[in-house]
């Protein structure tokens, strides 16, 4: 599983990356693999509040509906509109073009995991 060292991770398989004063969030390589081909993405409205561990949007594969939760508190300032027509970007490039939202907020005090911690968690989960 691909777990980039420079990202922070939520326990429900989101990643967060600091880009200036916003945090980009998406789902991990492991999460997209579990979900299967994403065929539909429902994103939050720009301006909506993001709250730790609460639903930020929905991802659907052919088989299942899956919520994705926010790894931090803040305000949604941008969403990845490309996903409306190309939801498969979540599978093909989960840490790049498959990002989900940009949130204005901070992960300084958050309880996010680093890459090692997240790797250990998914290894424990899959055994």
């Amino acid at each position, binding site marked *: 599983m691909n777990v980039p060292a420079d990202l922070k991770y939520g326990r429900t398989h989101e990643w967060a990356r600091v880009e200036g004063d916003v945090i980009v969030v998406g789902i991990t390589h492991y999460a997209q693999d579990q979900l*299967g*081909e994403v*065929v*539909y993405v429902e994103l939050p409205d720009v301006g909506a509040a993001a709250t730790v561990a609460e639903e930020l949007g929905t991802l*659907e594969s*052919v*088989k299942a*509906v899956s919520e994705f939760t926010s790894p931090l508190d803040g305000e949604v300032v941008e969403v990845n509109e490309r996903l*409306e027509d190309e939801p498969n970007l979540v599978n093909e490039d989960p840490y790049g073009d498959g990002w989900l939202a940009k949130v204005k907020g901070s992960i300084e005090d958050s309880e996010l995991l680093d890459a090692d911690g997240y790797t250990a968690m998914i290894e424990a989960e899959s055994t």
Partner: protein
Amino acid sequence: MTQPKRTALYGEHVAAGGRMVEFAGFELPVQYSSLAQEHTAVRTHAGLFDVSHMGEIFITGSGAFDFVQLVSCNDHSKMTVGRAQYTGLMYPQGTFVDDVLVHKLADDNYLLVVNAANRAKDAAYLAELAADCDGVEVRDESDDWAQLAIQGPLAGEILQPLASNDLSELKYYRFVFAEVCGHRAMVARTGYTGEDGFEVYTANEAAPEVWRTILAEGRPKGLLPTGLGARDTLRFEAGMSLYGNDIDDTTTPLEAGLGWIVKFKKGDYIGRDILERQKEEGLDRKLIGFEMVDRGIARHGYPVFLAEGDEEPAGHCTSGTFSPTLGKALGLAYLPLEATEEGTEFSVEIRNRRATAKVVPTPFYSRKKM
């Protein structure tokens, strides 16, 4: 909870990387690598399914034919030995106990292939009825049989070198006893995908070798092992009903658009009077296919509304998904008859939001149309 059962092919699924889930009391693979790839493999090349969870119930004895006619809404009087026929097992209310495939092995021997989730219920229902009939024995042999389905346009080409009979002689909805990979098997030209294909019944002990041999023969030709996920999307696109979703003990075959399995020129049978009345008086509701107009995917159980302000749902989505072949969100729902005309718009509630859908013809996919 009781421990889920394993089919004779459990080890093969794990070896092939199957993601195992519980379904109808069995541990079965929902997918191996990718649902969409498996789905497409069946439409364009071939797929191999373990359907050993399906039940096999035999009706035997001098009264077997009359008994099958009594419990089924279809007419089996024209069946010759070696033919299979789809039908509904009926409750007195004209609703489904189950939907099954009847195979005629002999004048006094019929095999009913039933849904795994209904197997125990069916066997008990049939046994109770048989107790009042002369010369009828009901025997549930589900645990003794494995069943593999090889489906797709290349199914025949892949299976032929492994089979002792000439598969090109085997017409749709016929079966023969033959040898497959050197093992005695019942080979039926039936399936649940909308493609050409075969269902191969073997003893449990033979199943792993048959599975491995078909996989080895088929993989170079594009065959993939296919899981329950693709089985569901394939049957859905092909307009084949799923018991527990699209049909159940509250729906009649006429409402489900299965009027072609309801026969009235066959004498009396369970549920006949209700079905006859429904046919004469007309239906209140009907199962229709729909396509989403707004964004969103309707799923099993989502409520549907005829008018925007309606608070009471008019029905619910019985099956719905994103169709891998057609690339759009489709569904099935029971709607009041006045709303079932092609093009009629209604709405589906998807996570507290109402999204517009419109009635379209079914089946969504037919290999003849493509």
